[in-house]
């Protein structure tokens, strides 16, 4: 059901954990629908993401997309990190089963939420960044149906 890459990232997730004093942190999803993702970003003075860490409550796809998302954003500028979309995460994982596409959406949202937190803390504007969606369910409905 899952690709080898998804299984690899599920079995050996990269960058699991918390971060002391992160530059930005974002939590998305809700326990009711079975997925919660928390993303921590460490961003240097030049706006480059030094490190990303995550914690996830969710299925195999949720864990694998979190792991892949942290790998994809590391080393990028905050502007570049915005381009790490759910499609990019899915492609990097060699695809996901159709019923699991919504999990990849959560990864994109988690990155955006962490970036938003960073922007708020530093009083800056990141071009193209929308405020985080609190109710992920609403968004899923639109994307899926």
């Amino acid at each position, binding site marked *: 059901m899952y690709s080898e890459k998804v299984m690899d990232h599920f079995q050996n997730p990269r960058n699991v954990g918390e971060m002391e004093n992160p530059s930005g942190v974002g939590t998305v999803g809700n326990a009711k629908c*079975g997925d919660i993702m928390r993303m921590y970003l460490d961003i240097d003075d030049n706006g480059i993401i030094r490190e990303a860490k995550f914690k996830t*409550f969710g299925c195999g796809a949720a*864990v694998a997309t979190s792991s892949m998302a942290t790998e994809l954003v590391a080393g990028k500028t905050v502007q570049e990190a915005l381009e790490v979309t759910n499609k990019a995460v899915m492609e990097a994982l060699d695809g996901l089963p159709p019923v699991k596409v919504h999990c990849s959406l959560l990864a994109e949202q988690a990155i955006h939420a962490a970036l938003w937190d960073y922007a708020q803390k530093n009083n800056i504007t990141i071009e193209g960044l929308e405020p985080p969606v609190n109710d992920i369910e609403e968004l899923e409905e639109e994307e899926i149906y």
Partner: protein
Amino acid sequence: MKQFIYLDNAATTRVRPEVVDAMLPYFTEIYGNASAVYDFGQKAKQALDESRDIIGGSLHTKGQNIYFTAGGSEADNWALKATAEAYRDKGRHIITTKIEHHAVLHTCEYLEKNGFEVTYLDVDAEGCVNPDDVEAAIRPDTILISVMFANNEIGTIEPIQQIGEIAHKYNVIFHTDAVQAYGQIPIDVEQMHIDLLSASGHKLNGPKGIGFLYIREGLKLRSLIHGGAQERKRRAGTENIPGIVGLAKAATIAMDTMEQRMEQETSLRDYLIDRIEQEIPFAKLNGHRTKRLPNNVNFCFRFIEGESMLIMLDMVGICGSSGSACTSGSLDPSHVLLAIGLPHEIAHGSLRLTLGEDTTKEQIDYVVDELSRIVAKLRSMSPLYEDYAKKHLS
């Protein structure tokens, strides 16, 4: 060597070699059509009749009241749709529960779209239906009560005899979905006042694709499949003789070994429950502790999600199942876990392990050891556990 421990016997079971041996001649040797006049066909007919009598005997009724179907879902559909159709002039009210299998629930929803009214009874926190609630829900226009014998997810055994007595008292037809119970625990359709009973072959080490509906003698019921005189014109289609013979063989063995299996499985089940409760924190047993199928164990592990657990168990050779949304393809977790009052976030972390007659204590020990490790690993990744630990464990 990699382990292989199959603990999903509520999903399906291994066909016993004796069952396969009993079936094989009916594929290549005695393959005649049981409806044919010649002796060759009559040999198949004889096997059919004998099988029917065996199944009837296992339920304390006559063989002629057993109608073979392609499985449990068909039997459930037949029982509900045909009763509704046959008695729609008498009334249009049906009583069932919130924890039925989808073969019953979705059929009820279909009937609701076709002019019937359905009462879905609540269950208590252990999944038990209260017979008083059944009685209170009966109306003058109630034509059918359908309550499962034992629940497929949490293993709770329902008070079928009491509900049967109530149905009998009010002259309402009583159906029970016994797919999980048949062959596992004793059933007596006479003593329990059961009018209709569904069962399936592959849950008791028999073949897939065969099941039956027991219909009380004299009960008026419409046919579900038209097109032939088979099954007393009530279920057309050339009989699946190999499947029927296999089901009868599986039932014979299940009845002969029931007492000993119940004892053995109950003891292993309780050992598994005890070890999990002692060794894994924040684990909650779902279902009734004693009024429970001998082979069923169902737990919720807080702060983690079921599908992740299943994948990690699979990696160490253990087959189980979960009621999490991610294993169902919908956003909602199991309707059974929600009906016993679990919040969504806890219901997502459920794990069902269903033992078989071959399950050993060594296997159970291995499963608990691996499960402890897996739950700890997933919790270490979970933001919910992190938050909880910060609040409560510091």
